[in-house]
């Protein structure tokens, strides 16, 4: 809901900023108050930060970036408290003109981070649109080691297991990095990471087991896993779920409760217990004598966070010392002191562990259900309390949060790449743009024309268009300019005549006639190769032995290199029917390979060499195939179909490396894959050797042998291997047989990589004679879009409901939300940009009436905020002027606590007993949160 309101805020602010922009004075670099201006000579030192330092290279005032500037400055202020420095390099300053980043292109859209002199990540300012996103991103970066991101259940479990017996774990699910919730979690993590182990996840999968339906999880959650007490690694940690509000003060207070020792013995640990009333804990007293001390009573610890546990040795202390009138006569005895109450409630039942537990549980329950007035509050206050928790005043139906972080992220990689590249101008100068008038003459007048039909808003079209323009550039110095385009959004009629129904389409016209649709890869080289191939003779005549020999080594009779890695050569002894077929095939596939031909018997020797035996002979030459550089055709030479399909099939190297670009071709063949997962090590070569000889022997024509580089632990090869072996500890080299269409994967396990063994294994699989243990069945899954999108029908229904409910109250929901939340205030209650307002006020005096009206509106309605919701910041610069004195580990003091600060980790002894850290009385870090 918070976010939703912010969005409206942003919207309305945008609305006004349309008007403001003409008035607003531009942004200048000295308007950065908190982000420090870094001179060139100070840069190396700045980057040397032991934690993380952040730099923005300011190039020019860009209205689009103005809100970022202000937010960056504000973040500098807050992050300064964490001793994280945000700086600005003024690229406008001539002194800085030779700073690397200042001369680069995209610098001003990025924020750079450094640590110990190294550059870390460059964060896009598009993802750093407010204080929340900046603080959370930067804190996350600074604490990457302390707060790891765990994206799977296994990772989380490993993490938890690792800390069993030593640390408690605070684990959080976050909808995304950069949200308000993420920010407060990181702030808390910063303060407590020396005490607890923190981790976060943005994957619902990682939450599996913590809540019943992780897949529908749509908001931030925090769990506290008490693992430090777990002695046996097999045991589960007790899990405490954080169910309070997701704001800094609530979460921080939760953490502080956790930070107190789980129990305190009087007088063993001291006389004054640390459970101060402001922690809001119920207290459980166990009175004992040495003789009656009950160890098991510590199971009451399970009530942690609702209560603190005090053991009192009645023999060693006096009631007054504990602040009591008297001790119970018999021990053990249990009593409860409700939070913020003075009196103790003693258990009257006979003592037993169970009864003690029950006693406390029932007391707690009583407390929860009893009317609030007893707390000494009036009814009105209670109501007030409740209202405060709501986002809309009573009676107003709450509108669901429609803003989805996800939809802001692009999940289509092509679209994303296009989006990123949009700032770099496409070079289309040498691409001829055809129109309804020029299209027909152009293809008629020229020998060979490539025409790309595209739509300007289709990202796949744009992807090829850029490459196409670059390809055209390569022909800059030549007379023929074969590359033309038709924009189908401009020339619908031209595209309709050419029957274009999908985009992009690259058509090839030859001699004024349509030749074929280009169906190769949409890359610069492939398109250019196609052109080169089409330009040459099809097939190329090889006059004598010398030319045939050259052809085999990749050189054409004219001395130029053969385009591409695959070519075809046919050797005939006369003009038989096969020659015609071959020429036909050469013409139809002429845009893909070079075809060579000799038909007067001179190729006899070569036929023998390449394995044909005799003429006629068709050989496919694969120059990049180390295993099988020649493949010969043994089928019917009079069937063009058979020959073409053979050529297509023999295209790929016999032992191809599996890449995203080759996969579709191989996948199309619908044959099982035999995948060798390899890296550069010797052991991988030992696997490849037998595989290569298997390939060479051509004994398994129904299988596709391929290899997948899987050395890098993050490579997709490794991830696929881990999926296939259903294990996170898979190691390379490995071998799997994957029948993707059937969803079956057989893993080659626990055997040595010898040719015989592998062959036997393949045979067993083919004969269905295989141990099921090595079989892994791929799940039958549903393809779901990764991003949900907006559900307008629901929104519409919701709105209608709201309208019905709020009949009679004719309040514009947006304006209303704005009133509640305070337009022009961010989530911290700070005015968005007071400078702009000042400017506007001045403008008011001498400018038009409408303008004044708008400002009136802003003042009266938009900049008004509901009472008690937001406190404007009272922070003054001097409040934290002493910040730099603190060591990075310590947390700077809040204004109220002055210098006492928060305990630095070294003050806190690792044991939970004995130490009594003195928690500050106020919420940490920001008083206004």
């Amino acid at each position: 809901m918070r976010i939703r309101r912010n969005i409206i805020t942003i919207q309305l602010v945008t609305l006004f900023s349309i008007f403001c922009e003409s008035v607003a004075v531009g942004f200048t670099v000295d308007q950065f108050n908190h982000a420090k201006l870094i001179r060139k000579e100070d840069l190396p030192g700045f980057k040397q930060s032991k934690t993380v330092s952040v730099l923005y290279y300011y190039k020019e005032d860009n209205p689009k970036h103005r809100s970022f500037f202000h937010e960056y400055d504000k973040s500098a202020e807050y992050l300064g408290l964490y001793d994280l420095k945000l700086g600005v390099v003024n690229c406008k300053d001539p002194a800085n003109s030779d700073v690397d980043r200042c001369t680069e292109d995209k610098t001003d859209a990025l924020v750079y981070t450094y640590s110990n002199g190294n550059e870390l990540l460059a964060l896009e300012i598009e993802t750093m649109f407010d204080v929340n996103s900046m603080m959370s991103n930067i804190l996350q970066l600074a604490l990457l080691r302390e707060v790891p991101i765990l994206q799977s259940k296994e990772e989380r479990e490993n993490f938890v297991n690792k800390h069993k017996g030593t640390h408690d774990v605070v684990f959080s699910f976050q909808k995304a990095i950069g949200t308000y919730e993420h920010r407060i979690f990181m702030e808390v993590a910063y303060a407590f990471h020396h005490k607890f182990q923190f981790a976060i996840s943005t994957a619902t999968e990682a939450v599996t087991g913590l809540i019943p339906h992780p897949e529908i999880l749509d908001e931030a959650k925090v769990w506290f896993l008490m693992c430090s007490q777990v002695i046996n690694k097999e045991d589960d940690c007790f899990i405490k779920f954080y169910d309070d509000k997701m704001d800094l003060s609530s979460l921080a207070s939760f953490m502080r409760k956790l930070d107190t020792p789980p129990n305190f013995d009087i007088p063993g640990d001291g006389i004054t217990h640390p459970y101060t009333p402001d922690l809001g804990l119920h207290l459980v007293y166990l009175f004992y004598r040495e003789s009656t001390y009950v160890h098991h009573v510590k199971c009451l610890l399970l009530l942690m966070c609702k209560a603190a546990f005090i053991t009192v040795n009645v023999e060693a202390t006096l009631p007054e010392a504990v602040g009591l009138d008297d001790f119970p006569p018999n021990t053990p005895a249990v009593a409860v002191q409700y939070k913020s109450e003075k009196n103790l409630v003693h258990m009257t039942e006979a003592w037993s562990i169970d009864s003690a537990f029950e006693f406390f549980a029932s007391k707690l329950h009583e407390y929860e259900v009893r009317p609030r007035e007893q707390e000494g509050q009036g009814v009105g206050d209670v109501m007030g309390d409740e209202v405060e928790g709501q986002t809309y005043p009573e009676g107003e139906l709450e509108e669901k949060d429609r803003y989805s972080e996800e939809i802001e992220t692009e999940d289509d990689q092509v679209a994303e790449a296009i989006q990123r590249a949009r700032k770099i101008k496409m070079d289309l100068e040498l691409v001829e743009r055809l129109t309804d008038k020029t299209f027909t003459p152009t293809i008629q007048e020229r020998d060979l024309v490539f025409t790309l039909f595209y739509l300007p808003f289709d990202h796949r079209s744009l992807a090829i268009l850029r490459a196409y323009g670059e390809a055209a550039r390569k022909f800059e110095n030549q007379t023929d300019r074969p590359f033309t385009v038709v924009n189908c959004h401009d020339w619908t009629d031209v595209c309709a005549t050419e029957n274009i129904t999908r985009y992009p389409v690259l058509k090839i016209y030859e001699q004024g006639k349509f030749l074929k649709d280009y169906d190769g890869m949409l890359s610069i080289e492939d398109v250019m190769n196609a052109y080169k191939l089409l330009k040459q003779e099809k097939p190329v005549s090889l006059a004598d032995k010398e030319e045939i020999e050259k052809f085999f080594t990749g050189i054409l009779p004219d001395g130029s290199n053969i385009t591409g890695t695959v070519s075809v050569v046919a050797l005939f002894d006369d003009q038989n029917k096969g020659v015609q077929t071959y020429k036909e095939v050469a013409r139809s596939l002429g845009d893909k390979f070079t075809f060579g031909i000799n038909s007067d018997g001179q190729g006899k020797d070569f036929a023998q060499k390449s394995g044909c035996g005799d003429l006629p002979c068709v050989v496919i030459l694969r120059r990049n195939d180390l295993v099988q550089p020649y493949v010969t055709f043994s089928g019917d030479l009079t069937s063009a179909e058979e020959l073409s399909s053979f050529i297509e099939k023999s295209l790929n190297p016999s032992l191809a490396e599996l890449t995203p670009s080759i996969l579709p071709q191989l996948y199309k063949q619908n044959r099982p894959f035999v995948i060798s997962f390899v890296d550069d090590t010797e052991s991988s070569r030992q696997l490849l050797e037998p595989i290569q000889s298997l390939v060479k022997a051509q004994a398994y024509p129904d299988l596709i042998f391929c290899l997948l580089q899987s050395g890098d632990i993050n490579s997709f090869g490794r991830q696929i291997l881990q999926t296939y072996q259903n294990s996170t500890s898979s190691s390379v080299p490995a071998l799997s047989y994957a029948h993707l269409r059937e969803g079956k994967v057989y893993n080659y396990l626990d055997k040595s990589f010898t040719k015989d063994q592998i062959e036997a294994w393949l045979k067993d699989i083919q004969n269905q004679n295989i141990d099921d243990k090595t079989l892994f069945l791929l799940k039958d899954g549903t393809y779901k879009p990764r991003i949900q999108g907006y559900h307008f029908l629901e929104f519409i229904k919701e709105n209608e409901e709201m309208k019905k409910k709020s009949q009679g109250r004719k309040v514009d929901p947006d304006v209303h939300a704005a009133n509640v939340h305070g337009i022009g205030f961010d989530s911290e209650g700070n005015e968005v940009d007071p400078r702009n307002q000042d400017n506007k006020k001045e403008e008011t005096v001498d400018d038009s009436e409408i303008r004044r009206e708008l400002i009136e509106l802003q003042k009266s309605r938009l900049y008004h905020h509901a009472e008690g919701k937001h406190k404007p910041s009272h922070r003054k610069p001097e409040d934290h002027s002493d910040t730099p004195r603190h060591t990075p580990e310590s947390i700077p003091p809040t204004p109220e606590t002055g210098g006492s600060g928060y305990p630095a980790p070294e003050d806190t002894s690792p044991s939970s007993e004995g130490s009594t850290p003195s928690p500050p009385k106020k919420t940490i870090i920001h008083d206004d949160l």
Partner: protein
Amino acid sequence: MKTFPRMDPAILPSDSFVRGVFLLSLCWTANAAPVYHDYCVIGAGPAGLQIGYFLQRSQRNYVIFEKSNSAGSFFNKYPIHRKLISINKIYTGKTNKDYNLRHDWNSLLSDDDRMLFKHFSRQMFPSADVMVKYLQTYADRFNLTIRYNTEISDIHSVHEDNRTKISMKDQHDNQYLCRVAIVATGIWQPRIPDIPGQELMDGYESLSLNASDYEGKSVMILGRGNSAFETATAIYDKTNFIHMVGRHRIRLAWETHYVGDLRAVNNELLDTYQLKSLDGLLEYDINDYKIVKEGGKLYLRENMATGQQWGEYDNDPLLTPYDKIIRCLGFKFDPSIFRKISDFAVRPSQKYPFIDYDYRSSMVDGIYFTGTIAHSLDFRQSAGGFIHGFRYSARVLSKVLNWRYHQEKWPSEILPVSNLSSAIIKRVNEASGLYQMFTYLGDVVLVDKDGMCEYIEEYPVKLIHKLSEVTGIETANKMVLVVVLQYGEGFHGPEEDVFRVDRAATEPEFAEYSNFLHPVIHFYTEIPKEEDTVKRKRGDPLPPADRIHHVLEDFSANWDRPHAHIKPLNKFLQRVLKNRTKCRSQTNTFSKYLASTDTLNTQSCVVT
């Protein structure tokens, strides 16, 4: 927008010549066997010519009957002050021909670029004379078969060989028999209120165009439409004052987004009223009044039974004497051409005949209506009453006829799902039919289990439940998407503030608040049934959808921005279509790393 194969011009003239001679010879033997045509179009106005064009292109046996001696004769006289108010925008900055038709309200559809109105006039609001010339040129250019000077009447149905046919005759009692009659007569009879003294009024159809006739005259004009204001604008500089009387609050076209309401080009009198310069607007229901002449002056007086009359107030504006009372109450259709008038003229106002959404007469099979006479289907909503609207409904009608009488299915494109969003974005950004006939004509996409789509352009969405019956395209077991352009609900009406500050939505997630014309995509898991259509909300042409997507409105009406328009649409399509797509997960394992996931998905996924 498709272009169609051109006919060989060499064949056509001789063909129509032969046909003409043949007809002529038949006429001489009047009262003999009736002349037969598959299609008889009545009226050679813009609508008759437009449907004639499509019939000719389909090489149908057709004839157009025109009572006068030229095409578009209505425009010889009307509008009487000769200024067309349909815009003739010459420049748009774009070359897309279909797109440019969005801003060309006068051209008829054809495959000949020379037949664009901009080649006939360079004025934004051209003279009506240009329209006359244009229509005649159009008829000649395509050699449409028109029988001029032929006044048709006595249209009725006859049963012959188990078939219903339409019979009619001309003024010489020549009989014609037609398989289908298409009435394109327009609405041209002046509406004259049946009140006492109505003969004392001047009618718009017979107004003096001599300005001096209005000098120093006090004038009342009855009517609130464009003809009333056109008249007022033409004479208000001569009169003492003009009082305009109408039944309704003034409806400004820019408030209602309906071009039939008062256009700004005609509304000068609003100024002089609101600035207290003697002219004025009044609201009365003229049917409750009578016109009397007293002392050489005309008065509008109450016409009630005694006892029901309002007491007379001495400040009643109607006590004003007038020199002239002019009625500009618009036109209605002429039902007298039908033998049985009551079959057609069932509406109380008789402005339009009663017809179905496929332009067919509700009562008589074989009779169709096209042009402004069929505007009852989208009256006060869309543009079906005007050339820039009915040129598309005529095209729809031709497709309806092609399937119904010739078993030629509607044209459609087959696309893979992965290309659907580009196809939709392209169409909503260029299609003029969707744009002009917003809300009424929509593109329909049928998606089958194999992830292939069938894209059907410009379908009358109110007939969505009859898609198969109307188009011949199979709809069983297919998901349905309907793409229409719509204004926001509550953004049109005479009392809406269309200039309010929050008139435009700017964020994609609030796209359903879009007020200006914007694409809306309705999704149905199966084709809606007849019973679903009764569930539709008022003002909504379609039955309730299973999912709806609004494409955010755009200031320049370019819905092609990657973030604001395309991505949310993509997500929507993925969600409604691919959510039902089942794949083996191994493709997902790979596809995570694949740039072109679509290739794989379309190969191995099936829609369930």
